[in-house]
């Protein structure tokens, strides 16, 4: 354990050294400064804690309407899957012979749901849903998985507070693991 700590410390020092080098070296004066407004317009990254979730809110009931109009044709009427991945079910199946990876059984962080739907869904018209619609459809998918009640209304705070069943299901890469 002491060896590992020492190694981690050495790695951190190397990292700091590299970052320092990247800070200190010459610049070419290429490009122009991005403004705060430009960054805000393009930066749609949401972290796992949901600290960057935008204003807005949506209910399970609103989400059902959005889902039926925008999602059900690929993901099934109740998220059971079709052309698109299954979104519902599979909780408790991950260690079985037939694991079913869905939002409910596998996704570790609820804010990632907002991030992914906003940037990439629906597949034929990504970035077309409003923030309210993304909150609503996130609420509906979580509700179908039994993770929020029927009357739930999700906003930045409420979505970030949803604890996903598989939150602690991920481990670091141990490879090389086969010798």
């Amino acid at each position, binding site marked *: 354990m002491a060896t590992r700590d020492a190694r981690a410390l050495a790695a951190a020092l*190397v*990292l*700091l050294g*590299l*970052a*320092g*080098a*990247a*800070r200190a*070296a010459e*610049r*070419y004066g*290429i*490009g*122009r*400064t*991005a403004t705060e407004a*430009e*960054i805000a317009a*393009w*930066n*749609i*990254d*949401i*972290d*796992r804690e949901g600290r960057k979730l935008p204003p807005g809110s949506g209910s399970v009931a609103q989400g059902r309407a959005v889902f039926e109009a925008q999602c059900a044709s690929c993901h099934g009427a109740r998220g059971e899957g*079709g*052309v698109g991945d299954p979104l519902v079910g599979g909780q408790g199946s*991950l*260690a*079985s012979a037939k*694991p079913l*990876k869905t*939002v409910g059984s*596998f*996704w*570790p*962080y609820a804010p*990632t749901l907002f*991030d*992914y739907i906003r*940037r*990439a869904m629906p*597949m034929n018209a*990504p*970035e077309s849903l409003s923030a309210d619609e993304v909150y609503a459809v996130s609420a509906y998918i979580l509700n179908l998985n039994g993770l929020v009640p029927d009357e739930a209304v999700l906003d930045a705070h409420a979505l970030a507070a949803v604890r996903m069943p598989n939150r602690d*299901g*991920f*481990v*670091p*890469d*141990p*490879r*090389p*693991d*086969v*010798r």
Partner: protein
Amino acid sequence: MTRDPDDPPARRRFLVQGAAAAAALVGGRARAEEAAPPAIPAWMKAPGADVGSQTYGTPSRFEADVIRNVPKGLKQYTSASSRTPLQDLDGILTPNGLFYERHHGGIPDIDPARHRLMIHGLVETPLILTMDDIRRFPSESHIYFLECSGNPGFEAIKGRTASDLVGLVSCAEWTGVRLATVLREAGLKPEARWVVAEGADAAALTRSIPIAKCLDDALLVYSQNGERLRPQQGYPLRVILPGFEGNMNVKWLRRLNVTAEPAYSREETSKYTDLMPDGTARQFTFVMEAKSIITRPSGTQRIAQGFHEITGIAWSGRGKIRGVQVTTDGGKTWQDAALQEPVLTRALTRFRLPWTWDGQPTTLMSRAIDETGYVQPSFSDLTAVRGLKSFYHNNATVPWRIAESGEVSNGYA
């Protein structure tokens, strides 16, 4: 192979499919006689096509069957993949038109004059760069392989050809600027630990890259094998992370967000994580471990008794290939194959072994050893540790079964 010197063997298996093809074979034979001694071939008796008759050259019409391997009958083709025809290629460089594809939201049609790269987050000066800006930075060229992490899945090893099995690997010479150079231009803050890269495709695909890789050998690439990137490979700008799984090498790059933590995006939580038998999933499984495959003889080909050169490709995300061993007796004995120079770090390496087939049924297989001493595992050794449900990072050896007829088929199937 039963050789008719005027009938290229690689073509024959296509010619024998179907009655129309059989008719073409007869026609081909007749034409072949007209070109064999003592006859003078027709193409010597009149001038050929004019210089410049093709302003962007394409392969001979007789190579029309060397194409990407596109799976049939998928539910949709927006988020899907096509494979490189490995068994039809020589050397280590993949022609740009045959480079494997894996897209998550289709192939965008990007005007480079309107494309912008934004660098923001934990930097001293957030930047916006045009493509002209990016090409002003000092450039470098390197040959690296690129491989999809699901090549193949653990439960999809029933393919017939080398391409069906591991055709989600390709190799090219990439030209661009070091990512470190561009990050240095913006100035990293001390707490910078990850760079989140985003594509300008309809998936706005997002992956987090550890800062150590960004400051090591990572590239922002605009050219591939001497010409600008093809749209399928990220035109006009992509990330290349030598040895790391394909999905992280974000195409159509438009944004680099320097952060203290990973984004934990969908592509690094619900996808591209490796489910283990105990129900946990390995996350941030970046490196593609050492792997090899014999591309000739390989599945669907047919060989004849006598001399053959066994050849194939090997690669490792951890560095150079140190050696490739080949068995021609189903794993009882292994011989060292010759490696074609140059042997480059994190590039495909071509191997060869002369072999005389005695006509007895057997199994051929190759295994790669990289410069770290890591040995490519068998499928049974790999799945003994990881089970059958991890999907990604299957680098097991591929057996080719040779039947008494000389028919080569997948030893897994």
